[in-house]
């Protein structure tokens, strides 16, 4: 069993395997399930993700009315052909937004690694799909590869916004996505680790400050940026760029930052954007009354 990214990469490279192979083997060993069982469970998760993206791209609206429809706007913008970032990144962004808008509307999604960050991995996957034309097998492996890195973060740091801030949620998701993109694009396991490190480094310190306590603002747009971040970091790693701080140390730094983060900035809706005048106004509008939360506890 791998306990950290260094061991994961070592296992893969010494046996000349992919990260996804190592994750599948470990899952079989731990659960006692067959390859087919494990594989088909991931296939079902992939289908849920595909359906969520499709639903979001048709346009959804959350119960609060705070979010929905942005994925559609972005797709229309991409179609005009004048985007600055380029189609692949914006496609990833729009599909990440689509998924998270479905989540905010209490639709069916696959938590990856959490619901609040569920857009990043599928968003990048379905955008990269258009570029790399992967087989279905490669798409399922994308999820195992991202899962392997998420597994390390969950066990050595945190994937919960309440425990570690949004760096632990969207940050983890972005790192997982970056590592999986590298594998799908033909990079090495250690390049996956570099991509994860580069991504997570740029998400450090990200607070969890949901307006009115809803998983909407700023969550939907953070999924967008998480997806873009993952795409850029994957390209950097594939170009041969490395992180000066090893991936495991970045994860450890993230954990320690999360522990020292004030409670007001960890999913309590007491600080950050939630405590802005507009944030409070929206909260009062949605719940009929201001919940009058303390901002400094």
């Amino acid at each position, binding site marked *: *069993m791998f*306990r950290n990214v260094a061991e994961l990469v070592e296992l893969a490279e010494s046996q000349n395997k992919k990260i996804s192979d190592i*994750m599948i083997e*470990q*899952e079989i060993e*731990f*659960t*006692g399930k067959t390859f087919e069982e*494990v594989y088909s469970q*991931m296939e079902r*998760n992939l289908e*849920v993700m595909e359906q969520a993206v499709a639903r979001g791209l048709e346009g959804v609206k959350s119960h*609060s009315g705070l979010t929905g429809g942005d994925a559609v706007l972005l797709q229309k913008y991409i179609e005009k052909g004048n985007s600055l970032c380029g189609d692949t990144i914006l496609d990833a962004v729009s599909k990440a937004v689509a998924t998270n808008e*479905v*989540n*905010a*509307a*209490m*639709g*069916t*999604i*696959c*938590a*990856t*690694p*959490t*619901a*609040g960050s*569920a857009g990043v*991995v599928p968003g990048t996957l379905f955008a990269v799909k258009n570029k790399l034309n992967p087989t279905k097998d490669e798409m399922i492996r994308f*999820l*195992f590869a*991202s*899962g392997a890195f*998420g*597994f390390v973060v*969950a*066990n050595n740091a*945190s*994937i*919960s*916004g*309440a*425990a570690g801030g949004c760096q632990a949620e969207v940050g983890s998701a972005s790192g*997982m996505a970056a590592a999986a993109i590298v594998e799908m694009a033909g990079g090495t396991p250690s390049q996956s680790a570099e991509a994860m490190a580069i991504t997570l480094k740029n998400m450090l310190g990200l607070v969890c400050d*949901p307006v*009115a*306590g*809803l*998983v*909407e603002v700023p969550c939907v747009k953070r999924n967008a940026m998480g997806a873009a971040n993952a795409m850029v970091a994957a390209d950097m790693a594939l170009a041969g760029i490395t992180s000066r701080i090893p991936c495991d140390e970045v994860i450890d730094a993230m954990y320690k930052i999360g522990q020292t983060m004030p*409670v007001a900035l*960890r*999913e*309590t*809706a*007491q600080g950050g954007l939630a405590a802005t005048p507009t944030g409070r106004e929206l909260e009062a509008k*949605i*719940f009929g009354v201001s919940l009058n*939360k303390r901002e400094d506890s």
Partner: protein
Amino acid sequence: MKYKSVFDIIGPVMIGPSSSHTAGAARIGRVARNLFRREPKWATISFYGSFAKTYKGHGTDVAIVGGILDYDTYDERIIESINVAKQKGIKVKFQEEDAITDHPNTARIRMGDDKGEIELVGISIGGGKVEIIELNGFELKLSGHHPAILVVHDDRFGAIASVSNVIAKHQLNIGHMDVSRKEKGQMALMTIEVDQPIDEAVINELTSLPNITQVTRISD
């Protein structure tokens, strides 16, 4: 290692918007339901920490009631669970608690009917994974690292032996076991951690043993 399966990370499939506040809450509710083994007539749910601050926005209330109604994390009926409970005549009450708990996402469920009641405390540790830390006033010493079975039983001779026999028969190895009771001859609790995943057949067989009142799987 708190997370053991890749599907703790890529999954669960669930109704949004929050894995810890929605899916985790549904799972805590469902553990309570599984332990109670029938639909309760009333439930009092206390939220602590981040749960108390944000449960309305996250649908934690509908999710935990959905769990009590035995809905899975992806069951779309979760959205309407409070109305369903009302139609079924289940009295549901929510309380926001100020007490500081060890974990930011903590919920206490008390529920019952005219035949009995149950009380448990669960924490939602992220990504939809949960741990039950207290049951009927018994503090649970679960590491969360292994599959575990909780057995509520009457404090009688042979009860522990019969449970461990069933576990041995199914070739499960006990890594840690804890037995506690309120008073001699009264309600007692076995907390059993095993090395292998637990089949439904094991739970069914344990449930049918004499002096056993409630059996449930806690984490797998």
